[in-house]
């Protein structure tokens, strides 16, 4: 695997040459500080750009062109990394050795054609594409409650602090959506190209000098910025935790406990907490939470604890029956106390390390994983795979015990089913 960075003045191209796959990956990323009132408009923008362009005025034209490029997959997405946001455009395409001459140039050029020559007339996006996307995003926002777990997470974070970027709803907000026009969207478009930081990652078995040449020709842009963006959100700690119960029409009740991670060092954030969490609640079917809630007390089918690195939060959730809420709280507390008391074996720690190493090895088997390896090294100085494995191996039991003392409860939340939720299938 060979990694290179090409500095193109206003953006950088990162190339990762590997012959591991028959598929290739290009990801064009635009990053910026996350602003709540830009979320909805950014979502609209990414979808509208992927929907049509000057050259391909309807979605159908785009789909046909992509299918002709040997079923190339192109998608845009907006994500949040702590207090920053990322608009990314991913192109997955077949190794050119299986394709016609000229394919590489066409396939690399395709997303740039979509992004740089949008379906815009008189400084306004095409009304038809605009309407379709607006309708879809509206439906996405409205259907939040269909997924009980997602809805419970969202409510928990809002209760924690609705001004924290950690609680922002990345699908968007209805009020903001109503105010977006084809003209305002074009302003947003220009804002992204003028103020965002851009990186392009290309991975696969490709002649990277040729790829870089093609990108430079297609993406001749001088307005982008190159600046550091802080990722980490510092969420406030609460002296006494909140305890909230809400209702919805669900068959199963969703239980959440949200914790702040206070003053973790870089080593703790990158390494120790992962091992802690595997033993505590995220180690699949052998963690303490799994054992106590599911195996010993049959309280749930799903239970897990999720580490939200850039928010410095730990979120436990389980699908339970609401009458068992207090029992669940007790068992979670028991597991956490045991962690703080060092009540886990050396074997548990060794097994957790093996689990982490396995997941790193797994991630090395996918192009998306390989791109993330270099991306997070670049954004957050996260060591690369081999170094990461080495450092994980060095973590001690004492370090895990120390971190257990830096976990502070913020919110207990229960999304309870109403008694009239029916199953009438």
């Amino acid at each position, binding site marked *: 695997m060979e990694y290179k960075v090409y500095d193109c003045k206003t953006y950088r191209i990162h190339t990762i040459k590997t012959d591991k796959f*028959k598929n290739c990956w290009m990801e064009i990323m635009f990053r910026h500080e996350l602003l709540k009132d830009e979320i909805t408009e950014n979502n609209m923008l990414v979808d509208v750009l992927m929907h049509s362009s000057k050259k391909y005025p309807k979605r159908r034209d785009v789909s046909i062109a992509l*299918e002709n490029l040997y079923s190339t997959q192109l998608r845009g997405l907006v994500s949040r990394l702590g207090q920053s946001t990322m608009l990314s455009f991913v192109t997955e395409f077949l190794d050119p050795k299986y394709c016609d001459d000229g394919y590489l140039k066409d396939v690399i050029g395709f997303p740039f054609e979509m992004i740089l020559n949008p379906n815009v007339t008189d400084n306004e996006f095409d009304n038809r594409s605009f309407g379709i996307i607006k*309708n879809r995003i509206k439906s996405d926002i409205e259907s939040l409650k*269909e997924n009980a777990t997602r809805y419970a997470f969202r409510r928990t974070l809002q209760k924690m602090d609705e001004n924290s970027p950690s609680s922002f709803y990345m699908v968007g907000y209805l009020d903001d959506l109503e105010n977006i026009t084809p003209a305002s969207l074009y302003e947003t478009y220009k804002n992204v190209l003028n103020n965002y930081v851009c990186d392009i990652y290309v991975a696969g078995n490709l002649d990277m000098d040729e790829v870089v040449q093609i990108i430079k020709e297609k993406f001749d842009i001088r307005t982008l910025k190159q600046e550091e963006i802080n990722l980490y959100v510092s969420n406030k700690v609460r002296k006494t935790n909140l305890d909230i119960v809400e209702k919805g029409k669900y068959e199963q009740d969703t239980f959440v406990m949200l914790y702040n991670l206070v003053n973790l060092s870089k080593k703790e954030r990158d390494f120790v907490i992962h091992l802690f969490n595997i033993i505590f609640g995220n180690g699949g*079917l*052998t963690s303490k939470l799994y054992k106590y809630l599911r195996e010993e007390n049959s309280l749930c089918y799903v239970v897990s604890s999720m580490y939200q690195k850039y928010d410095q939060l730990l979120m436990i959730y389980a699908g339970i029956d609401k009458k068992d809420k207090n029992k669940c709280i007790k068992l979670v507390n028991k597991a956490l106390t045991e962690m703080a008391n060092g009540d886990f074996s050396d074997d548990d720690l060794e097994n957790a390390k093996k689990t982490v190493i396995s997941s790193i090895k*797994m991630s090395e088997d996918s192009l998306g994983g390989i791109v993330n390896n270099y991306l997070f090294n670049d954004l957050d100085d996260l060591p690369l795979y081999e170094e990461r494995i080495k450092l994980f191996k060095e973590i001690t039991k004492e370090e895990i015990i120390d971190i257990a003392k830096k976990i502070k409860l913020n919110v207990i939340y229960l999304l309870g089913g109403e008694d009239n939720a029916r199953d009438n299938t």
Partner: protein
Amino acid sequence: MQEIILKGIDEKLYYDKCDNGLPVYMLVNEKVNNFYITLSVKYGSIDTEYKVKGDKNYKKVHDGTAHFLEHVNFNESDGFTAHDYFNKLGSSINAFTTFDFTSYEVFAYNEFEKNLNHLLDYVQTPYFTKDLVEKEKGIICEEVKMGKNNPGHKMYYGMYKALFKKDKRKNYVTGDVDDVQAITVKELEAIFKTFYHPANMFLVITGNFNPYEAIGMVKENQAHKEFPKYLNPIRKRDKEPIGVNTNYQEIEANVEIPKVKICYKMAKSLFKKYDERLINIYLSIILRNNFGSTSYLREELLEKELVVSIGAGREIFNDIVTLEINMETKYPKEVIPIVQEKMRNLTLNEDDLQRRIRCNIAALINDYDDIEYVNSDIADQLITYGKVTDNMYDIYNNLKLDEATDIIKQIDLNNSSIVLLVPYQETK
């Protein structure tokens, strides 16, 4: 050991069979770190009635027995499960149950032999106690409720209930809460004894490993175990009539925007000129062309804001073919007749067909990068067709417009169900 060349795509499938009847399929990818092993049992949720030689009547077990068995089969002794063993290796394991089969899987990057042996050992060694079975009931009931929380799940079973009169696909794979509560150790033991026989299983290994060493290990492992003679159980399959159960049904669910399924049910024999795989490929291409992202209809419905999304699919169950169109729409009354009209006028031209062939071939080449995908594709082929096709590349290249047109002509739209998922009505 047989080496089966998968023509046109540079891949080779290894096949062998153990003396006790266990078939083994292997596909190597030396460029990846990991290997993925699945041991599947041809016993699924619809196999609730069966008999063996000498039985007068069919024996019956509760709905959800296959899935329940999958859960408790992880127990190896009191207080020790397969999870504990594989956790020490750093491997990840899982299992799932479908209508047709149950599959146990392990994913890892080292200790190939230990992973392989232990997968075979724990799946093939039962340990069911009353306490373990009782304990599992609460867990599975929460799993059932989790499914019911999901509108997609409600729609899925709503459709099968509307379409099928006899077919057991209308029942939850997990069983309902009452079924789960009623399942007994005895039932589980009987099913294990009857169906968990090597001759009724198959092993699929994909990823980075040596196939010659692997087959040696499997044979050695199996040679040390004793199994009674396989009784070749007969699974009761009631003949499913072509008529549907309900033409129209509304189901209340936790949705904001109604979801609609329009389903058609027809006899597979309408397409008897073509083998099942070909029927599947042609129907998929036809539906995609008329309702997918390159269709005029989809473009039009989106532009008029009549739908939020639309897609289509097809399935073949024994003698029945089903076609389904799925939509999210606030205007079901307006959209349903438009879709029905389109179904009466399905089209495909030569350009469309050639483009789809190119896409299918690109996907065929691509998919072999993913050892999980390849593994489950092999398993699905074995369940659906009883064998792995070695000439997909040629099959795609030989697709013909006149055959596709003929398939369109044979489609029978006389038996259909419409299922609507609608928001809960306020009960004030």
